Every structure is written in structure tokens, then in C-alpha cells.
């Protein structure tokens, strides 16, 4: 198999840019990152398909000279899926903007809770002082 170095490098750059954008907080930028990265991935399929050739139409050219049609079919599917993703995430970003006035990805609830507790230097809710029974009655102090 012959691999195309230019395509491979381009794919790498696109995926790197996509990952960089995905690390942002704003959902719209994350979406842009996903789009760019998925284009990079699509390019990887072209690398995987080997050398370029004639259009893969049956009876159009000598089969030995045509390009590999399978990766093209897969890329097509991937493109359609990315389109669906784009529509959905855009809607979600807009809804988030409607509700919160911004589209930033919020913190994990658990992280936020632990951070709050640490700041307040307290124990978590699940801690139950052992001198109390389940009904809340103080059973030890006497």
C-alpha cells in the first residue's frame, strides 16, 4: 500500500486543531472542534484507501486502475453523521444560551460539591455522627 504523506500530515494538523478547540469551555467552539477533527478523520480514510485512481464506477475503467471505493462510502456515512451531530449540538448550544445566557459547559455537580465542602472545611452530607441513631435521637450522650 502507498500512503500519501501530505494527506496524513493534513489530517494530523486538522485533528490537533480540533482537539485544541474541544478543550475550550464554550459549546460552540467545541462544536467547531468536533467538525474540524471529524474532517481530519475523514482524511485519514483517504490515506487508508491507498493511491488515487480512476472513479470507481463499474465498467468505466480497468478495475486495477480505479480508486478503492470502500473508504469513500465510509467517509460519506461519517459526513452524514457529523451533519446530524452539528445540528443537534447547535440546538443544544442555543438552548443553553436561552436558559443561561451563555453556552459554557458547566462543572460536574460532584466536583462542585466537593470543592464547596473543601472550601467550607466540612464533611460530606453522607457523614452521620455516630452518637445519633437513625431517628436523629441522641443515644450516646447520657
Amino acid at each position, binding site marked *: *500500500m502507498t*500512503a500519501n504523506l501530505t494527506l496524513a500530515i493534513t489530517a494530523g494538523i486538522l485533528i490537533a486543531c480540533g482537539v485544541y478547540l*474541544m478543550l475550550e469551555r464554550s*459549546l460552540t467552539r*467545541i462544536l467547531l472542534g*468536533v467538525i474540524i*477533527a*471529524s474532517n481530519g*478523520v475523514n482524511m*485519514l*480514510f483517504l*490515506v*487508508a*484507501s491507498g493511491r488515487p485512481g480512476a472513479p470507481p464506477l463499474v465498467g468505466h475503467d480497468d478495475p486495477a486502475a480505479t480508486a478503492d471505493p*470502500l*473508504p469513500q462510502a*465510509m467517509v460519506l*456515512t*461519517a459526513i452524514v*453523521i457529523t451533519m*446530524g*451531530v452539528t445540528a*443537534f*449540538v447547535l440546538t*443544544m448550544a442555543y*438552548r*443553553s444560551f436561552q*436558559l*443561561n445566557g451563555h453556552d459554557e*459547559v*458547566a462543572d*460536574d*455537580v*460532584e466536583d462542585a460539591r466537593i470543592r464547596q465542602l473543601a472550601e467550607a472545611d466540612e464533611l*460530606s*452530607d*453522607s457523614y452521620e455522627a455516630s452518637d445519633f441513631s*437513625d*431517628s436523629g435521637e441522641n443515644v450516646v450522650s447520657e
Partner: protein
Amino acid sequence: MINLIPLPVMLALFGAAITLIIPRRPIAQRVISIGSLSGIVILAAFFMWATDTHGTMALWLGAWPVPLGIGLVMDRLSALMLFVAGVVALCVLIFSTGQDKGEVRRETPVSIFHPTFLLLMGGIANAFLAGDLFNLFVGFEIFLFASYVLLTLGGTKERIRAGTTYVIVSLLSSSLFLISIASIYAATGTVNMAHIAVRVAELSEPVQLLLQMMLLVTFAIKAAIFPLSSWLPDSYPTAPAPVTAVFAGLLTKVGIYAIIRTQTLLFPDSPLSNMLLVAALLTMVIGILGALAQVEIKRMLSFTLVSHLGYMVLGIALASESGFAATIYYTAHHITIQAALFLVAGLIERRGGTSSLDGLGGLLKVSPLLALLFFVPAMNLGGIPPMSGFLGKVGLLHAGAEYGGWLVWVVMFGGILTSLLTLMAMAKVWNRAFWGTVPDNVVRIEDNYDGDAGDDDVRFMPPLMVGATSALIAFSLALTVFAGPLYSYAERAAESIQSENYIQAVLPEEVR
């Protein structure tokens, strides 16, 4: 018989299409979706019998020359997973139709609930039947998209927040999956799994390791295996109760199924066993410690879900036939029990007014039926003999002891510890929600008491919801009662997914 293989996927997708075009007729929607899910369950039961008597079946769609076309493969493992998934989805759907108008408006307000739910099932069925890697990817994408919609139903603030994390993590893992497929295609020139299995053995070791690792990371994100599990407890609990139940039961197990399939088929002599053992140990222990710290029942159950995935990873890491058999049995058990517990959590939320342990108490007095519904699956999850959770764990420990080595013993010890800590978490829920005094918000319900205690239970727990939950619990108990035949079925399944058996059944002589 072979031509029936695509029928489960088609039933679900047709059902989705029909329910989508009749949004204003909720009763017809319910009848069609329950009908198509029942059809899937019956078909899957038939396939369990058929694969067990005739062996693995493969159907090549589109009349292309054999390794090129899209292959659907039905073997014992796919049939069992499809059956359990169908039963769980059916019970959950019946549960959701039991919700009264007020709750439907609050929880699942739109007419797209039924079509999306069926699409979810169609995607899962497609993933179980896929004989090639790209079709597996398509199956994953179908059910992931359905899950995005179900998770953000109604578009409330909390659900959008939880959905955002979930969607981003899933998108990332889908991209990784595509990269893996591209790399595998570049290395082997095929996407059919049986064909890849033949060719991957010819690759050099570093390339094999790279491909294996990429697939493993992709599926580990979907299956929520530590350290790739932190997205799960944050995103599942906010969804409506039936949605959480089906997600918790099924979605992570599709990831586990994909790991079992690719590991046994493509990389039978896995050099990554030790890494998987460590991952299993950390998943179990860290998951259960997270569960102990929770006061919200649904969040606690999400953490126990993560924790118990570790048992399945343990069986996969052993990579022996007995290990896979135990994993398959445990997966069937865990799908059922986890979905049942989430349904019970939904009932607790209705009956007690909240799912936070801080606001609950005395439910045993208020509704003994609810207490029973919680007690049975909770004990099963904790692994109390003689229930299926115990049998699955014994199978795993047995397979581990056969394998030997200090690391395996450490992981097995961690597994027993996790089992005890699960009991402790369940005991905590029992203590604080079912015992003790009845707090104000539950008393408020008692104030409306109109003289007939039965009425009150029916008002807050409609018979259809209780019936669906009981049916699921009864199914989990059936896994215990019929453990003997089922376990030997799992052993035969573990044998038929082994690389050489699978290749022999799927590929014709000349392509091998």
C-alpha cells in the same frame, strides 16, 4: 431462518417510523411500540434456540461477493444479549406508559419519546448483530443519537447541562472509533470482523497492539470503565426514570459486548491482560467508594453501575473461556438488575416525593410493596446467595482462581470487598429511606388519605408501573432459577465466540 436475522433491527426501525408519523395518537403509539418490542423479544428467544441448535448464522446482505458485503452475524452471545435487552426495553416502555398525565408532562413531554426509544433499541440490536466493524459503528451512532435526544428530553436547564457532558464525551469516543476503523482498514484492507481476524494475525506486534489499544479505549469510554468513567454518574441521573433505567441497563453493556467481541475475535492472545486487571480493580473499588458518598439514590445507583462493570472487565481480562462465560452470565444479570433498581428508584421518587435520602424515611410503613420491590434487587446486586449476582460472581472468582497469579488474587479480593461495600450502600438506602420516621413531605401524602390504603398506593404507584417493575424483578429471579441451563448456554456462547470457531462459522472456505 437465516433471512430472519435483520428482522429485530427492521421491527424497531419500522416501529419508530410509524410512531413518528402519528404523534397525535398516543394510544396507537404505545400499542405499536410495545408490539414491536414484544416482536423483538420473541424473535430473540427464537434465535437463542436456533443458534444453540444450529450454531452461528451469518447473513450477507446485498448479494456482494462474500467478504465485501455487509455481514450480519447471529451467534449465541448476540442472541442472548438481544433477548435480555429486549426484555428490559419492553418492561421499561410499559413502565413509562403507566405514568399518569401529570408525570408525562413533566418527564417525557413530547410525542417523540416512543420513536426515539424504538430507534435506541434498533441501534442496540444493530450493534449486537453487526458482523463488520463499520456496521458496529453505525449501530453505535444510531443508539447514541437516540440517547442524546432522550437524555435532553424537554430541554430543561439541568438536562441540558448533563446532556452537554454526555454528548461531548460520546462524540470524542465516536471520533476515536472512526480513527480506529481507518487504521484497521489501512492495515488489513477490510472491515469485516471475521476477515480482519484472519489478517490481523499477520501484522507485526506493535501494529496489533496499537489497533487493540485504540479499540479498547473507544469501547472503554462507552462502557464507562475507570479512568474513562467520570462522565456517567454526572449525566445519567437527571434524565426521566425510564430513560435512566434503560441507559443504565443497556448502553454501557453494549460497550462491554463490543469489547468482548473485538477482544475474543481480533486479539485472542491479548498482551494487555494485566492492564485490564488493574482497570477492573480500580473500576470496582473507586466506583463503589463513590456510591457510598452519595445521598441521592439515582446518583448512588449510577456509581454502583460503574463499579460493577469492573466485574465484567475482570472476566474479559482473564481471556479464558470460563472467564468469558462468567462475564456473559454476569452481563445478562447486571442489565436486568440495574434497570430494575432504577425503575424502583423512579417509584421511590413518586411515592416519597424525592429521591434524596435526606428527604425520605419510613417508606416501609408507608408502602410495604415498594420496600419489597427495592429489597429483592438490592440484595441481588449485593450478591446475596443464592441469587444471580452471587452466581455470576462465583463464576468469575472460579475463573480467576483457575487463571492464578498474585494480581488476579488481588483483583478478586477487590471484587469481594466491592460486593460487601455494595451491600453497605444498599443498607444505607434501606436504613434511611425505608426505616425511621416518616418525614413531612411523605406525611403530606398521608394527609390526603381517603380511608382506603390501597387507593393511596395506586395513586402514587399506578398498577402498570408496579407491574412492569415486578416483571423485571421476576425476570431477574428467573435468571437465578434457570441459572443451570443459562450458565451452560453462556459457556457454549463463550466457546462459539472464540476466534477460530467464529471465523469458521462466518467465512466460507475459500476466503479464509
